[in-house]
């Protein structure tokens, strides 16, 4: 057994877990944060993407013990108060989902992608960067549209703040 402790969505959490426990199972089963999904068993689909110390990672491909001491953000940690995060708002506005299963991972990947491209994104880059996230409904078109719109909106906000 491992004692793990980490900060998840700004809250200190800890638990005593089997060493083989994956981060995604700690988040879902121990903490009840079921927004992070498990879509495949092969580290391909990206439905489980969360941020660990500010970087998007696949939480099904990391042990909870590896993440002990880290800061983790899940889809539940994005909205502030009642207000959706700009990426969440853009997915809603542009209908970037159908069944919604891949959406938490898509949004976490998108937030990371936008942060890594502060000068903005183009369609080719977005499609390339979505390599690790699989959607079986939308054909990606509206997901790409939503991410481009969010990137614009967030750049606008950053300009206003500056």
């Amino acid at each position, binding site marked *: 057994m*491992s004692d793990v402790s980490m900060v998840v969505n700004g809250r200190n959490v800890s638990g005593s877990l*089997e*060493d*083989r426990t*994956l981060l995604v199972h700690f988040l879902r089963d121990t903490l009840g944060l079921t927004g992070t999904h498990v879509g495949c*068993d*092969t*580290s391909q689909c*990206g439905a489980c*993407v969360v941020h660990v110390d500010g*970087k*998007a*990672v*696949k939480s*099904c*491909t*990391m*042990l909870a*013990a*590896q993440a*002990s001491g880290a800061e983790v953000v899940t889809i539940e940690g994005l909205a502030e108060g009642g207000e959706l995060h700009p990426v969440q708002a853009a997915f809603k506005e542009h209908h970037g989902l159908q069944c919604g299963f891949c959406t938490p991972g898509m949004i976490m*990947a998108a937030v*990371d*992608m936008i942060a*890594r491209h502060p000068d903005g994104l183009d369609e080719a880059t977005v499609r390339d*960067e979505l*390599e*690790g*996230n699989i959607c079986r409904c939308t054909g990606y078109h509206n997901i790409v549209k939503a991410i481009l719109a969010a990137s614009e909106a967030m750049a606008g906000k950053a300009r206003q703040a500056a």
Partner: protein
Amino acid sequence: MYETTYHRASSVEDAVKLIGSAEDGKLLAGGQTLIPTMKSRLAAPTDLVDLRQIDALKGIEVSGRSVRIGAGTTHAEVAGHAGLAEVCPALTHLAAHIGDPHVRHMGTIGGSIANNDPAADYPAALLALGATVVTDKREIAAADFFTGLFETALAPDEVITAVAFEAPAKCGYAKFPNPASRYALTGVFVAKRDDGVRVAVTGAGDDGVFRADAIEQALSTSFEPSALEGVSVPADDLMTDIHASADYRANLIVVMAKRAVAAANG
């Protein structure tokens, strides 16, 4: 995943001690291959020794044309390093096309070469660059390091600490990714120096990464894609699997080599 015991190493010495006292232990770098392999129960180490928190394994140093990359440096860090891109752009390009962004945030150069997957990208780069693999015990030339499918010259308790090489005058990498896995169905790394050209091939050999003599000879005369017109690579020792036949891979090697040379010439 079968049960395992997790240990977090605080230093390379600590890792060596921990792995030495484990019954059937494995060093855990970024875990992007090992964890999925354990999930599918193809690996079941009794102990995992996590190297990710060892600061001494991290970072990239570029001094003139001498490059040293810490074994714990992630693919994303290699891909995004401006100094490295200046002297060896093919390597940053290669790192930027491993897996996907999330995998690149975790996966490391040390973990990749220790695993020596026959379709991994880094082995081709190291072999073509004539790189040295530095461990806690010794320095191993890349040509001696990669010994076969998933096999290396590493002892069970040996820890890779860095990869070092002199940047060549020109280098290029081109791969044909498997459309599903994005691993290299065939990848070719070319490195041109004053004393010759080295060409290493991944994803195609039935015994892992290898150098393509015929292509090296042709490019030593003229380092242009056109120099490879009519050059063929024997299919004898190439892999045949559900994705591609040996003949198909033999053809891909020449095509990828041409693209790699074009990339190297900018």
